[in-house]
């Protein structure tokens, strides 16, 4: 074991904070979101954006309007695209986080949650993986979403924000609290949704 005094989460949290945004869609306060790609794709929860668009505020205070490109209530995920020209998106110099497949997570690994619990942006919570990777089925059908359950203290406002490993790699999108446990939607489910969205947006892609 290492001396505890040499261990802090501030470096990892700092990197993660740069990729975490606040998402407000007019009603009932704000949620969180994750900058997923350098083209400005922001991933959040479906229950955070109920309308056609939302305002996205970066960690440094800059903000832009975004349109809801996809909303999947069964997976509780939404994808936002900036209402900006490509060059303006480039000008934002967005910080894209690394993504990790949560199937490689081990129970007990340290996880970090960033978001805006009770509307306070940039808040860090630390915990451990409780159950690494579970499919969620309804009525015995094919799995709709995969989840990661974490022993980490979340609050309203964490919704849509990142759950990341000790290296700052995103493993899930924090979505709800069940039985005291944080439940995050797996990055695999996000990737599947983004593939579907890209296929729809460029008809030539098979």
């Amino acid at each position, binding site marked *: 074991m290492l001396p505890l005094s040499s261990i802090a989460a501030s*470096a990892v949290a700092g990197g993660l904070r740069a990729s975490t945004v606040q998402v407000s869609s007019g009603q009932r306060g704000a949620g969180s979101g994750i900058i997923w790609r350098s083209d400005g794709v922001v991933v959040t929860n479906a229950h955070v954006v109920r309308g056609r668009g939302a305002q996205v505020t970066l960690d440094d205070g800059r903000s832009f309007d975004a349109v809801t490109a996809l909303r999947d209530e069964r997976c509780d995920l939404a994808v936002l695209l900036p209402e900006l020209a490509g060059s303006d998106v480039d000008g934002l110099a967005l910080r894209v986080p690394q993504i990790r497949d949560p199937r490689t997570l081990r129970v007990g690994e340290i996880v970090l949650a960033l978001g805006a619990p009770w509307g306070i942006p940039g808040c860090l919570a630390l915990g451990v993986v409780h159950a690494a990777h579970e499919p969620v089925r309804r009525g015995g059908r094919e799995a709709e979403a995969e989840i990661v359950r974490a022993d980490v203290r979340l609050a309203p406002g964490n919704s849509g924000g990142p759950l990341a490993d*000790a290296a700052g790699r995103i493993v899930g999108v924090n979505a709800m609290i069940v039985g005291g446990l944080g439940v995050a939607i797996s990055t695999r489910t996000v990737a599947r949704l983004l593939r579907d969205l890209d296929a729809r947006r460029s008809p030539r892609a098979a």
Partner: protein
Amino acid sequence: MPSASEATALEALSNDFAAAVERAGQATVAIHARRRIPASGIIWRDGVIVAANHTVHIDDDITVSLADGSSVTATLAGRDPTTDLAVLRGATGRAPIGRAPADALRVGAIVLAVGRPGASVTASMGVISAVGGEWRTWQGGRIDRFVRLDLSVYDGFSGGPLVDGAGRALGVNTSGLSRASAIAIPGATVDRVVDELLARGRVARGYVGLGMQAVQIPEEAARRFGSGDVGLMVVSVEPSGPADAAGILLGDVVLTFDGEPVGDPTELLALLGPERIGKAVPAKLLRAGEVRTIAITVGERPESVPQGRGRRRR
């Protein structure tokens, strides 16, 4: 400024935690002995599994799921509702859990609660928030150290191990002894109860055969008798029980038992450990305006319905 080595250290700690859960998880089993989701248990010695008594509702043909997904059948060796421990015998063929030294129970120590409320191992992390001396549970069980935890004990975690950063067991987690906070039963207490249950199938408890009620003793009388301001009035005497044989009467007010003041029935209960069984213990009492001392030979409590059954706790 945060550095790269700091980030690497966090990853190293994360890997240590995962390895600790993996290691402890090998000896953490699922106990299928109630209708709800299974609870956790620990391979404590070869062929000996420890579980939380309140989660074990049956005595025979208990299915125990092991880390590799296989399962074995276990049989109850004994239960002690007063410490919320049950001991099962089952040929798991697995190594018992590694144990941490007793001095590892320190306030501020980072700990993991490991459980297996089903097929997979699950974990939560926190710190030991208080360590105290010996205490008595609400049913009179003796626990060697008071260990309070600042961590979440989830459904099905009772009976699972509390482990240190190396995956070594410090004790057994249970929600059955306190509603206020997470509590762990230290390894030393588990060893003692396991020894007794394996040898005798039960933990012997003393009894005197009295129903009692706390009563206020008037200030003037308390001064005259040199007693405290509360005593225990006898409201029922079990016929032919130890107290009846000693001549205790309805209406007597017990002031001290073996020299210890008793102002609450649980205080007397706490004095009825196995060490006093068969001993003539002096009870100072108030009868008809006089203080007198009567010796009661403490009996052993007869077998009764296990008190852990049917309770709806995790």
